[in-house]
């Protein structure tokens, strides 16, 4: 009788696995309340992985099953791992390309081309370089208003209306130039009452504000704010 040969997983085993799964759920909730720094994510994933293996091995009976089903399951997981790792190897290492202002692509000529054009001994190479490579340009400085539109507008209104951050209406009268500069460079130095700390720094970092904005641009932003 064919079905008689199927392994029947004992109730005791199933109950043990269920108890372990509940215990691991409690453990992952508790460890998530502690701050383990860089270990937070790997630990939570390790616990989730252990739970998944327990479900697959015992509840789904892969442990007792025809090995071909294990092969199929492993193939599926292997493809998912390839998908995840190749994608992350691109996105995690490509740098912050997405936030460059429109029209400007930073591009460095290879050192060899610089040398060639300096010595001018190989005119062909220079001609080729001029033909194929875009000219290196400094990013045009953005106006204070453009910076406001790009980085500030979502949270700070100019007309007094309430957004996640305080309005800029009249800010030129109530703040000195130095105070405005400090509030941009170190948002948590002074916090307007009723507004959350850290939010602005977090936001500007996520937008790569500090790494893409020159001192001169911040000056023009301060000038723009002074006029409000």
């Amino acid at each position: 009788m064919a079905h008689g040969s199927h392994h029947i997983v004992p109730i005791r085993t199933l109950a043990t696995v269920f108890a372990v799964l509940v215990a691991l759920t409690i453990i992952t909730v508790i460890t998530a309340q502690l701050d383990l720094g860089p270990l937070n994510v790997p630990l939570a994933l390790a616990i989730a992985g252990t739970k998944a293996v327990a479900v697959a091995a015992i509840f789904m009976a892969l442990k007792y099953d025809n090995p071909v089903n294990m092969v199929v399951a492993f193939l599926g997981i292997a493809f998912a791992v390839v998908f995840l790792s190749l994608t992350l190897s691109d996105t995690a290492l490509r740098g912050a390309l997405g936030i460059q202002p429109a029209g400007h692509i930073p591009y460095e000529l290879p050192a060899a081309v610089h040398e060639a054009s300096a010595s001018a001994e190989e005119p062909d190479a220079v001609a080729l370089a001029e033909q194929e490579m875009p000219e290196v340009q400094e990013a045009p400085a953005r106006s204070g208003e453009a910076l406001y539109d790009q980085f500030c507008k979502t949270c700070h209104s100019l007309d007094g209306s309430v957004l996640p951050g305080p309005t800029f209406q009249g800010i030129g009268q109530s703040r000195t130039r130095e105070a405005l500069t400090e509030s941009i460079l170190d948002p948590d130095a002074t916090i307007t009452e009723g507004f959350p700390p850290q939010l602005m720094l977090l936001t500007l970092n996520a937008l790569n504000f500090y790494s893409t904005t020159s001192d001169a641009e911040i000056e023009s932003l301060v000038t723009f704010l002074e006029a409000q």
Partner: protein
Amino acid sequence: MAETSTTLKHYFVSSAQQFDAAKMGMWLFLVTEVLLFSGMFVAYAVYRVWYPEVFELSSELLDWRLGALNTLVLLASSFTVALSVHFIQRNEKEKVVVLLLLTLLCALAFMVVKYFEYTGKWSHGIFPGAGFAPHGDYAAYYTPYAPQFFSIYFVMTGIHGIHVLVGMGVIAWIVTRAIRGHFSAAYYTPIELTGLYWHLVDIIWIFLFPLLYLI
């Protein structure tokens, strides 16, 4: 043997071969399910690597107690499904019906919790996509890329929720067949395959819970 001969297709040598073929087919289907969800897990991973602070801040808005409750509910339903396979293998048909009904109840509880979570978010203006406009206490959480976190949250839990609903439909169907006495120790392929599907839905949630609610 009479029962077996009514379910054995002529192109299989034996009911054992038929059962193994059906089960392997189910595993192949589960692989496509893993790959379906892997796309969303990759989207989550990419955005989390880019904006870890935003993900940590935004996940504070998800209630880990409700997430943990739903995890326990789904684990319990996986346990009852595994038990139902155990009892049909031992030909104890009445217990199978009770266990499958318990599974259905757990699935319903999961969806009820999910309903309260979703409506709670909507009432604070947290919608997927362009409608994202948190207000009131939630306004401080409107950081850049917070919309991406919540779009990923709604799409992942939404597609998972659809899988729970489909599972409920399938379980309801095999409950009616179990009541009509279609299954026995000699033939229980639909229960086995439904169980495999249900465990996979559980495994997906096992990963969604810590990724979205805890870390």
